[in-house]
């Protein structure tokens, strides 16, 4: 998450790190605190041993999956332990007396709007937290779905949109927690992707390998037929100039006409093939769509033609969503626990090993 000149990143080791982008020295892989390259890095969660992870049935699970969110000079992040933390953006101190606890694990990110934080949990509920106190929001009963929630919620115009593994997309009022539509939108598979809202339409993918477009107001489908890929949709889709860019676990990047739900005609090769599953959400930098696949390859795709402009191999799996600011792309590679910064043409600016920040 980039906020101004600051990058906030959560690691699988349980740390949230504040990096100062302007102070970053390109030739140094290990950042210096005295030079102001990083400001704080509190350990919000203990990674624990393999056995402590397994006790909760979380065999092989990591610690921080969801991306942090910044608001009111505070960084909010959900951990796999089921706790939500609020960290003072300036000094890295805890803002709440104690973290907010959901009844399950948190895999997706959090959403903050109008003094309320929304987070989905594997207890199947969408929780609302009063950001000033860190306690459950009064008058909002946690909204129970039929299965785990791993999708990141999105708030727009007082309505929270989120998916559940019970194969449905929900739209509930942010203040009361009541369902907005007559009934949730049913798909043929679990909904894990973060919904993308463009105007009056919500776009989201499902485990039935289909990408859906539904009207935010009514929950009615926009397209005659949902767009179908060869495997599940996990990552959030992206919108640019009438085109939806969606990455599927079938290794392909699709450019889809937002109005018709058909493959867009502009790309010479549509879909654009990569060599592994794409789990991280893509970003657009200038006229380049940047996509990272699980095998560590980063692709720069020309938005107009769909041609590959550049490719880099980081040799470390990339699962976290990419983020962009001021013409740069920032991504976190999992195996080497390193943050990389690229420019729009694929030139690597710098990399920082989060493991070395002590």
């Amino acid at each position, binding site marked *: 998450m980039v906020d101004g000149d600051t990058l906030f990143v959560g690691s699988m080791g349980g740390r949230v790190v504040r990096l100062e982008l302007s102070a970053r020295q390109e030739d140094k892989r290990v950042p210096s605190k005295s030079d102001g390259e990083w400001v704080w890095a509190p350990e919000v969660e203990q990674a624990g041993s393999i*056995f402590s992870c*397994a*006790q*909760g*049935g*979380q*065999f*092989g*699970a*990591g610690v921080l*999956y969801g991306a942090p969110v910044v608001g009111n000079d505070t960084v909010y992040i959900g951990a796999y332990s089921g706790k939500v933390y609020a960290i003072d953006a300036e000094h890295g101190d805890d803002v709440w007396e104690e973290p907010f606890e959901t009844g399950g*694990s948190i*895999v997706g990110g959090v959403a903050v709007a109008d003094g309320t934080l929304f987070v989905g949990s*594997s207890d199947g509920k969408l929780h609302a937290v009063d950001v000033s106190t860190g306690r459950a929001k009064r008058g909002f009963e946690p909204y129970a779905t039929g*299965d*785990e929630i*791993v999708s990141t919620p999105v708030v727009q115009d007082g309505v929270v949109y989120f998916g559940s*593994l019970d194969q449905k997309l929900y739209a509930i009022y942010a203040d009361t927690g009541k369902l907005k539509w007559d009934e949730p939108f049913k798909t*043929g*598979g*679990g909904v*894990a992707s973060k919904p993308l809202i463009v105007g009056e339409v919500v776009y989201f993918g499902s*485990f*039935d*390998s289909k990408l859906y477009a539904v009207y935010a107001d009514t929950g009615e489908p926009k397209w005659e037929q949902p767009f179908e890929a*060869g*495997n*599940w949709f*996990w990552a959030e889709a992206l919108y640019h100039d009438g085109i939806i860019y969606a990455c599927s*676990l079938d290794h392909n990047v699709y450019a889809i006409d937002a109005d018709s739900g058909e493959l867009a005609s502009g790309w010479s090769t549509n879909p654009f093939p990569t060599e592994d*599953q794409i*789990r991280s959400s893509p970003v657009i930098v200038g006229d380049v769509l940047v996509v990272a696949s699980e095998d560590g390859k980063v692709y720069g795709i020309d938005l107009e033609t769909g041609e590959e402009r550049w490719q880099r191999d980081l040799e470390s799996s990339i699962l976290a969503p990419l983020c962009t600011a001021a013409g740069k792309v920032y991504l976190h590679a999992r195996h080497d626990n390193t943050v990389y910064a690229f420019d729009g043409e694929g030139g690597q600016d710098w990399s920082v090993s989060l493991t070395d920040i002590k």
Partner: protein
Amino acid sequence: MPKARTIILLLLVVLIMLLVSGVVGMTEIVAAFNLLLLRPILNFLVLLSGYLFGSFGLAIVVLTVIIRVLTWPLTTRQLHSAKAMQAIQPKIAELRKKYAKDKQRLGEETMKLYKEEGVSPLGCVFPMLGQLPIWIGLYQAVIQGLGIAPENLLGLSKQLYSWAPIQEQVPLNSHFLWLDLGSGDIFMGILVAASMWTLQKMSTQPSADPTQQSMGRAMLWIMPLMFGFFALTFPSGLSLYWVLTNLISIVIQYRVSGWGTLRVPSLSSLRQGRILQPANTPQSGDIGAPQLEGAEADSVVSGRKGAVGAGEGSPRKKDRNGKHRDKRKVRRRGR
């Protein structure tokens, strides 16, 4: 069966040659394993759960039973081979004693003995090797299917067939009885340890070698405790598979060689405050009958089941051949 053995041997040789020559690497082997075993088993399991009220636990139960029934002939063959090998151990010991200084002759005579007795030293290994990939496939399928970490869930997308009846089952229902199949469970840990101890106790063959004896005694406890500990930490769906497969193995083991060295108190022994002393191996076709151990086995007339062990004050006396007889039987005959 010799044909099957030759085929397995040939496949192993070809596999080793391919690995050594570098024509195929571990990646290709893992891919082949996934394609031929993991994916079919996992997808069948998921499909099965759809027909079993969406219960992945029931699917594990049914699939474990199916696989164990299908591999029943292999298992019994393996156990029979082990039993036959045990039966000729005294003769092998004699040969070792006789040809202690002539290793070549010892080898020749041992092979000759095997031939005469119709025993293959690898007879109990090949059936086990045949079952091993299936077990590993099922193990992996349970792990992949029940993993609740995002990595596991995403890993499932690589293994499932893109067939609607299968895809619709995701995410899999991880609740079965009192269990969350994706989490460890203390009761399942106890069941895994107890069933494994029972199976080990039944199948452990007593050895005359003190070193092997102490090793056997240690393993009898180490393995169940280790797996019991694993069961506390691994998904209980896997423990469910372990418990079921152990129980089925106990049934097969009982049918082939009885209770083995497991002490099973008979009603009569319980009445007399005594416990049955089983034999190391059944000496006759009396499969399933608990028997007495060592020298005592020769000196007792055992019933079909529940024979009473010899000891001071036991109601037995020697017959005219110097063998013990149950006093009650003698009295009965006397009448």
